[in-house]
Each structure stands twice: as C-alpha cells, then as structure tokens.
C-alpha cells in the first residue's frame, strides 16, 4: 500500500484515476500529432495529384531497398519497445533495460541509414535550392517532391531523436528501480509515442518510395 501510494500525486483520488488521466492525455497529444503530420500528408496528396508525372520521376530517385530495410528496422524497434512495456508489466527490470537499449540501437540504425540517404541526395543534387538539378521540364514540381520528402522524413527523424532522448531517460530511471508492475506509466506512454512514430513511417514509406515507381 505505502509503496503504491508513493507515486500517487495528491490531486488524484487513486492510482487508477492517475493512470487513466496520463493514458488519455497521451492519446490527446498523439491526436495533435496526427493533425501535425496530417497537414504534410495532405500537402503531398494535393501536389501529387497536380504533378503526377514529376512525382513519379522524382520518387524513382529514392532507394526502395533502403526504404524497405528501414521500415523493417523500425518495426523491429516497435517490437522491442512492446517487449520493454511487457517486461515492466511483469516486473522484470533487467529485461526492461535490455529491451530499451535494443530499441535505442535500432532507432540509431534507422537514423544512420536515413543520414546515408540524405548524403547521397546532396551528392546527386536532389536537395531543393540553388544546386538542385533535374530533367528540365519536370524540375520545378520535382523540387516540390523533394521539399516534401525532406520536410516529412526530417520531421519524422526529429521525432525519432526526441524518442531516443525519452528512452535514455527511461533507462536511467529503470536502472534506479523506479518502475514496477504497479507503476510503469512513463514506459507505457513512451511506448505509445514510439509506436506512433513507427506508424508515421509506415505511411511515409509507400507514399514516398513505392507509389510512384516505374518497374
């Protein structure tokens, strides 16, 4: 009882109410994130409708295999995150820390591959701006595609970096024994955030890499 009460904040009736408030609050935040990314998705759909040919041509400059590998890496990281939450639920601090570390490592692999992709786009003059080079007739709409590509994958990468920061904080707390089967709300909510970022990529991958492809 006393151990349970140590993490209850005074303005909540009981721990169930406290947990529900955190859980729903996180979902409200994720709904605002859906709107945030939704704006960019909408932008993509409108411009793709207007400049279908240029979007297909520009999309072919992305490496479909790197995109697919990164999708798999992110799905693996979602699985390790789910297992971290599971470890917390069954009160196993050591596996919890291990799964959190594994999730960070997979997140870093994803960002590493993304960095490599960005680097090659710079070398191929596909970064919007003064040195952007593309087939003359499609150059302007292709530049719009790459602006959206960098905006969307860039914002996604920022979310990954924030997520890695949150996971690092969780590891520190988990090693100090702050989480138990009775209380592991931060692990659970960071899991929701990480899975949400995974879902964003699940849509970015087909939209940017697959849909416009000429086989």
């Amino acid at each position, binding site marked *: 009882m006393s151990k349970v009460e140590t993490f209850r904040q005074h303005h909540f009736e009981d*721990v169930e109410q406290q947990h529900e408030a955190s859980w729903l609050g996180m979902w409200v935040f994720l709904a605002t994130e*859906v*709107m945030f990314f939704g704006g960019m998705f909408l932008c993509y759909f409108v411009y793709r409708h207007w400049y279908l040919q240029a979007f297909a041509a520009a999309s072919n400059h992305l490496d479909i295999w790197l995109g697919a590998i990164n999708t798999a890496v992110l799905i693996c990281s979602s699985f390790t995150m*789910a*297992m971290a939450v599971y470890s917390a639920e069954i009160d196993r601090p050591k596996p919890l820390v291990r799964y959190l570390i594994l999730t960070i490592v997979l997140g870093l692999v994803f960002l590493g591959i993304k960095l490599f992709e960005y680097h090659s786009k710079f070398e191929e003059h596909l970064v919007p701006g003064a040195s952007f080079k593309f087939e003359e007739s499609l150059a302007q709409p292709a530049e719009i595609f790459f602006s959206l590509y960098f905006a969307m994958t860039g914002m996604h990468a920022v979310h990954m970096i924030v997520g890695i920061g949150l996971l690092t904080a969780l590891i520190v707390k988990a090693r100090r024994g702050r989480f138990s089967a009775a209380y592991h709300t931060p692990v659970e909510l960071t899991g929701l955030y990480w899975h949400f970022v995974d879902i964003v990529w*699940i*849509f970015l991958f087909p939209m940017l890499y*697959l849909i416009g492809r000429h086989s």
Partner: protein
Amino acid sequence: MSGKPVVSVRTYALVFAALLVLTALTTAVAFVGEGLREMAALAIAVCKAVLVILYFMHVRYSDRLTWVFVGAGFFWLLILIGGTMDDVLTRPMLSPEAANITTQPR
C-alpha cells in the same frame, strides 16, 4: 495494475511477424501489380497501422473512452484530407481552366 501483462508475448510475436510479411508484400507489389499498386500500398499501410494501434498500443484492450479519443484523431484527419481532396479532385469538372493552371509545370 496487478502485474498481469496486457498482451502476451505470443501475440506480440505474431503481430511482429505479420508486420514484416506485409512490409515484404508492399515492397514486392511496387515491382509488379501495375495499376492497382497505389491502392494496394495504401491498403497495406492502413492494415499495418491498425495492427500496431490495436496490439502494440493496446487499444484493443482499452476502454471505450480510449477508442473515442483515438477515433477522433483519425476522424479529423479524414475531414482534413477528404474535404480538401474533394475540392482538388472535382475542380476540373467545374472549370477546365482551373485544371490547366495546376497541371502545367510552371
């Protein structure tokens, strides 16, 4: 709260395997399936997202209030995209000039 996990390891592993299979499938469809691959790619992405939300994010095992919150987020996304595309897609029907302005590379 009693130390009983919400979802079993077996369920997580099955969902994980399904997500990987769907990723392989959507990549394969990009190389074949001319014509229907756009719808296929988006349909597969929706399936994957639903799997993640229901199982990894525990929504399947959550109360109705959670469903309302999750549903509201996606419902507003539908209004945002549906309402705008409704205008963008039908504008050429009303005025051919409006279509020309936007389909020409400037």
